[in-house]
Every structure is written in structure tokens, then in C-alpha cells.
């Protein structure tokens, strides 16, 4: 049951619904009664994406069609590159999907600046990425989702790591009518490392779903995950994180944290941080907190002469900022700094 299969076969019955355990909070079946018409081909947008001119190259995927040199996403051993990968939805009320594969040879380093840009209203978009990393390869993947508020958007990435490879991922999203950003990692252990962070700022009637699954198959692997988010108005955020430690994957160190601020009485946060452990010599932990802004911190700030709205904005920014601080690419980190304030890029 996937959106990709539903689009391929033009069959709404294949849409995931709340009856699928992994989609219990992001029901597409109940939302989509009829699949929209397929999206037409569209020209590349004139304006630059949210990452501007950062990096060495740009690949555009407009309405599901690749414009540009896809081979830039296949790095030969030892090569280093920074690529902007822009998924653009340019036609209102239509549906499209795209599948790309990314591969890094041994010791290659890729900084992937991935953006989801909604330039029209109410589209239905699906993206699938199959990513493989050879030994010692490093992928820093920074995802910025700026979908339209009436859009339905799903992005699914599967990442296959070799020993000693490293994945560092940061996802930032402001949601959509229904949006899911999912990453599934096959983790071989053997000093491979995963950092999988994310942040959401959802308002209005928005919906953002960050789902991840990391399967530790070998010994000595690490995974760390920090997800933070703010929901306001009638928005809904979903976090589902699953860490599986397979039999024999000893000395796995996995940590997961999800922390959410709920700023309105009609907003909702649903979380399911899961640990499935089949090996005994492991250190695994997860923490999950959901609550309002700390009244004591607010009081402290106001006591020092800060107006309440300024204090609230500052505390919220600091809360989200922790995720942005962990981005390794300096220029990207600085560019995304303003996102922590209001979910926009200055």
C-alpha cells in the first residue's frame, strides 16, 4: 500500500490508510477519493530554490520529470560534490511521482540539498529515492520541504549503508494538507553511523509526518536522532521512529529523542518512538516530551524586560535552533538559521 503504487495503477484502493499500522495518523485513503489527473510536463521555474546558488550543481525534477544530468547523483569512489536536488510541483490539482537513485562509491562525499517546492496549489506528489553508500562514503542530506498548504506530498527514501559509511540527515518541514517524509535505513553496523534529525513548524490546518526506520543488522553501529517541532492553530504533527536491533547486532548504540511544543489548544502531536531489540549487549534509549512553552523560562525573560511575544518567539527559536545547529555544512547551516524563527528562508 503506497502512494507510488496507487499512482502507477491509478487505483485509490492502494493508498495507505489508518488500517495500516505505519499510517495510522496519516490516512491518505480517507482523504483522497479520486486520483487527480496526471501532471503535464512543465518548464523549469525561473526562480532559484531555497538553497540559492549553494553547491556545485543542480538537478530539477519538475512535475515528476527530471531536468538535468541525473548522473551527477552517482559519485565515483573518492569524489566530493554538493548537489541541489529540487522537486518542483508546478501545476495545480494534478498528480505526479518520481523515482531517483543516488549512489556513492567508496570514500565519496555528497552533500545533498534536497528541496520540495510547491509552486502551485493542491497537487499530489510522490518522490522515491533509493540511496546506496559504499564503504567510508559520507552523505549529508539536508531536506527542506516547502509544500503548498493544500498539497498532498509523500517522499520516501531508502538508504543502504556499507560498513564505515555515514549518513547525516536533517529534515525541515512546514507541512502540507497531508505530508509524509519517510526514511528507511539499512544499517550494517561495523562503525557505520547515522544521524537522523528533523524539525517541523506546522500551522493552520497543516499536517507533517516524519517517519523513520533504522534497522541495525551488524555489530558496533550507532544511530542518533533528534526531532523537534512546534505545532500551532489546528495543525497536526506526527513522529514515528523505529529502531530495530537485529539478533547479533551487539554493541549497537542508538538514541532517539522527540520533543514537541504545542502552542494551541486545537493542535495535535502524535508520536510513536519504537525500540525493537533482539540483541542483549546494546545501549538504546528514547525520550519523548510534548508540552507547552516553559512558563518559568517565559517569566525569566519577561522579568528582564522582554515583551511576551518577543520572549515566546525567542524561546521557540532556541528550541528549534538545536536541530539546525547540528547541520555540518556551515554555509547551509547559516542559510537555514532563519527557518528556526518562522519556518521561512530569509
Amino acid at each position, binding site marked *: 500500500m503506497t502512494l507510488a503504487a496507487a499512482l502507477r495503477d491509478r487505483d485509490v484502493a492502494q493508498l495507505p490508510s489508518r488500517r495500516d499500522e505505519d499510517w495510522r495518523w496519516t490516512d491518505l485513503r480517507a482523504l483522497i477519493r479520486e486520483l487527480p489527473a496526471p501532471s503535464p510536463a512543465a518548464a523549469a521555474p525561473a526562480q532559484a530554490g531555497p538553497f540559492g546558488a549553494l553547491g556545485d550543481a543542480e538537478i530539477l525534477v519538475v512535475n515528476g520529470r527530471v531536468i538535468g544530468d541525473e548522473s551527477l547523483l552517482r559519485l565515483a569512489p573518492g569524489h566530493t560534490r554538493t548537489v541541489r536536488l529540487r522537486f518542483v510541483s508546478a501545476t495545480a490539482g494534478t498528480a505526479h511521482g518520481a523515482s531517483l537513485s543516488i549512489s556513492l562509491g567508496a570514500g565519496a562525499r555528497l552533500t545533498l540539498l534536497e528541496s520540495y517546492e510547491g509552486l502551485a496549489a493542491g497537487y499530489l506528489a510522490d518522490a522515491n529515492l533509493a540511496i546506496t553508500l559504499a564503504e567510508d562514503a559520507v552523505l549529508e542530506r539536508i531536506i527542506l520541504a516547502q509544500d503548498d498548504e493544500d498539497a498532498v506530498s509523500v517522499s520516501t527514501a531508502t538508504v543502504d549503508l556499507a560498513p564505515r559509511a555515514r549518513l547525516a540527515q536533517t529534515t525541515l518541514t512546514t507541512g502540507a494538507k497531508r505530508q509524509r517524509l519517510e526514511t528507511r535505513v539499512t544499517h550494517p553496523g561495523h562503525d557505520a553511523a547515522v544521524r537522523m534529525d528533523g524539525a517541523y513548524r506546522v500551522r493552520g490546518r497543516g499536517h507533517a509526518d516524519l517517519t523513520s526506520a533504522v534497522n541495525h543488522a551488524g555489530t558496533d553501529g550507532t544511530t542518533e536522532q533528534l526531532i523537534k517541532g512546534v505545532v500551532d492553530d489546528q495543525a497536526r504533527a506526527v513522529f514515528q521512529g523505529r529502531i530495530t536491533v537485529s539478533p547479533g547486532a551487539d554493541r549497537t548504540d542508538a538514541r532517539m529523542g522527540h520533543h*514537541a511544543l504545542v502552542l494551541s*489548544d486545537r493542535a495535535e502531536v*502524535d508520536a510513536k518512538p519504537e525500540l525493537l531489540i533482539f540483541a542483549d549487549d546494546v545501549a538504546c534509549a528514547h525520550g519523548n516530551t510534548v508540552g507547552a512553552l516553559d512558563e518559568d523560562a517565559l517569566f525569566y525573560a519577561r522579568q528582564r524586560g522582554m515583551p511576551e511575544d518577543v520572549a515566546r518567539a525567542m524561546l521557540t527559536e532556541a528550541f528549534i535552533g538545536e536541530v539546525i545547529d547540528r547541520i555540518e555544512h556551515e554555509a547551509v547551516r547559516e542559510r537555514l538559521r532563519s527557518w528556526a524563527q518562522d519556518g521561512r528562508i530569509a
Partner: protein
Amino acid sequence: MPAVKQTVEHVEALERYQHGFITSIDQEFAPKGLSADIVRFISAKKEEPEWMLAWRLEAYERWLAMEEPDWAKVTFPRIDYQDSYYYAAPKTKEGPKSLDEVDPELLATYAKLGIPLREQEVLAGVQGAPRYAVDAVFDSVSVVTTFKKELAEVGVIFCSFSEAVREHPELVKKYLGSVVPASDNYFACLNSAVFSDGSFVYVPPGVRCPMELSTYFRINAAESGQFERTLIIADKGAYVSYLEGCTAPMRDENQLHAAVVELVALEDAEIKYSTVQNWYPGDPETGKGGIYNFVTKRADCRGDRSKVAWTQVETGSAITWKYPSCVLRGNDSVGEFYSIAITNGRQQADTGTKMIHLGEGTRSRIISKGISAGRSSNTYRGLVSAHPKAKGARNFTQCDSLLIGKESAAHTVPYIEARNGQSVFEHEATTTRLSDDQLFYVMQRGLSQEEAVQLLVNGFVKDVLQTLPMEFAVEAQKLVAISLEGSVG
């Protein structure tokens, strides 16, 4: 590491199941299998009024239309519901009036299990020792209930469920199925159709029940299931502490235990419900036999400021599948869940709780310690949810898991649903270690690591033991010690 070694020994000791004997006693059975006629047979045996039979039959009809759920992390061969006896009772002379008329074989069984059925035996103990009343359920019937007279003097009703249906139909009608509706889930529905005995407790307004109440469940008959039903009502301002224990003989076939427990707490009332579950877990090597413990337990904190605390120490059963829950309906009501679940051999446990916050200012606390040894699997599954109206709701959840053995498995599957901006939910889960954050916090204040660990361990033990009546605390303390010793290493 000696601590770990000791823990392993403790857990291995649990393998030697000491309650696995069979009592040979004349029993009468309902015909094998399940049908509307069997439901009528059980109802007739219990001399139930027409309304009770109608309720059972309706549940049976609904059950036929339901499908067995499969979402838990447990695997077992398909249950043949027609291959079991739904009613088994020791043959007795016409209604024994006193203990002297009860079959001596039965009395010997309870003596062997260490359950005091003679009031004077309890009284003859150390002066000032706490007393507790017992309802002894043997297969499908209640054998005896002690201290009924003394309890009646303060207005507390404590009797078998069958007796309650006959003697207090107005209370049973009012509350039965009001917390766990007949069609709530597959196993609760089955129970509603064929339930045999269980306990009924009513504590009138403002009364603090003068002693601990307890029920001891014993499955003895082969190829039978036990389907007891327990209903406890604490009226306004009342307090009651209730405990249950359970054992079964060692047999090669699996036996089903599908109970339903309903608790109702009205304004300012408090109920403590403690379980030490020690059903036969099956053969540790082959996994043969053992009890399937598929139980629905739920409390309704109906009144403002009411409180329910569940404590469970789960060591037995081939499969445990249960989630003692609290529906926090009254404003400022409180729900607590303390659990120690130990699995060994080839046992499987999928257990946890649900805290449903509906009222303003409701609070809940979940402490779960799971230990998984041998080739067993131990899952914590829990739900914490806050309704939009549950402003100021608070939850704290801590789940710690300890694994012993390469082939054991421990899972944590919490669900958190926050639907308003004025609630605070905190959840923390660790596997194999004490929380680094807590250690750091205490050590920051000048304590050595060892002292810090000790402090945290003591604090934790206190929390759980405070919720357990003294009679069970000793047994539970051993189990708590096991779970904590390992988690420090």
C-alpha cells in the same frame, strides 16, 4: 559482573515452577465446545436471572461475528475454541455452609499454595499482622470467600460474582459492562458470553475498606479455560485495596485464560489493584504448554479527584497479552501503572497500559520494568492520550528493559497522542542502563556514581512497593531487585 550473574540465577530459579501440581478431585464439566447451549448451561448452573442470560447470549452472538486480533507481538498456533471445556467445577454437596463442608482435597490445595482460607489461621498469626480477605476461585467456581461478615458490618460487599448477580442485581446491572462493554474486543466478548466466577466488590460512600481484599485464581481441570469476571466499585470517597494471584498445573497443552476486570471509582474514591501473576509458563526448553493470558483490565475514574493504581508483577504465562488501563474522566483524577514483567524460556509478553486523559487536570504515571531472559520476548506497549478538553493533563512514563541472553528480545512501543496545548507528557525509555540524565543530575550534587545509583534504585523501589500491600510486597521486592540489579550493571 556479579550483579548480572546473580540476576541470571534469580531468573533461572523462576524456571522451577513450584505451583505445577494437579489436585485430583471429582469435577463436573460442561460438554466440550462452545455454543449458545453452553452459554445457557453456564447460566443455568449459576442459577442466573433471565436478564443475565440475555446479556451473555447477546455477547455470544457478537463474538461469532468478530475476528481474533493479531496485532500484538506474540505468535501462537490458532486456538480451537471448540476444543475446550468452558465450565469445570469441583463436585460438592449441596452448597457448603462452612469451610468444614468444603472438600478437604480443595482445602489441602490452598494450604499447599499458601492461601489462608480459615479466618482463624490468619488471626493466629503474629499479633498485629495485617489481615486480608480471600475469595478462592477454583476453575469456574468460587470455593469460599472469607471475612464476609466482618466486611458486611461496615457495608462492604465482597463476594463471588455469581452471588452478586443473585444478591445484588441492581448494582451488577448498573455497572457490569459499563467500563468494558461486552463487544469491546474479541477476548472480552468471549468472556462476556461464558464468564464463570470472579469477585465482586462494592465499597459504600466514605468507607475505607478495613482490610485487603484478594482473589486467588487456580486453574486445575485439563483442557479447560478460565473466564473470570471481576467488578469493583468504590463509591464516593471510598477506598479499597485489592490483590489477585494466580497459578495453574504444569500441562503440555495450552489453556486459555480470558478475564475481564472492571473498576469504577466515583468522586474522591481510590482503588488499588495489585496482581502477582504466576500462571504456568510452559516448558522453558520446548515451549510446550502454559497459559495464554489474554486479559482485559480497565478502570473508569468516573468521579472528580478519583484515583486508580494498577500494580502488576507478571512472571508466568506462556503468553501475556494485557493492558490495564485508566479512563481519566473526572477532573483532577489520577491513574497510575506500575509493572514488572519477567519473561524467560519461551514466554512471550505484550503488556503495558493506556492512560486516556479526558478531564481537566488529570495526571498519570507509568513505570514499567521489563526483564527478558532465555529465548523469550517482552514488549511494552502503551498509549497516553489527551483529549482537547483535558487541559493541564500530565503524564510521566518510564520504561526500562533489561535483556539477559543472546536470544531474548525486548521491545518498547509507546503511542503518545496530545490534543491540546496545556498538557505535559514526558516519556523515557532505556534498555540495559539506568538513565544517564538522572545519574548526571544526582552526581552533579556531589554523590559518587555508586551512591547515585543506589539513591535512584531505592527511590524506584519505594515507588513500586508503596503501591503494593505488604503481603505481596516481599514477593514483589525480590522481583524488583532482580530487575534493578541488572539495569545498573
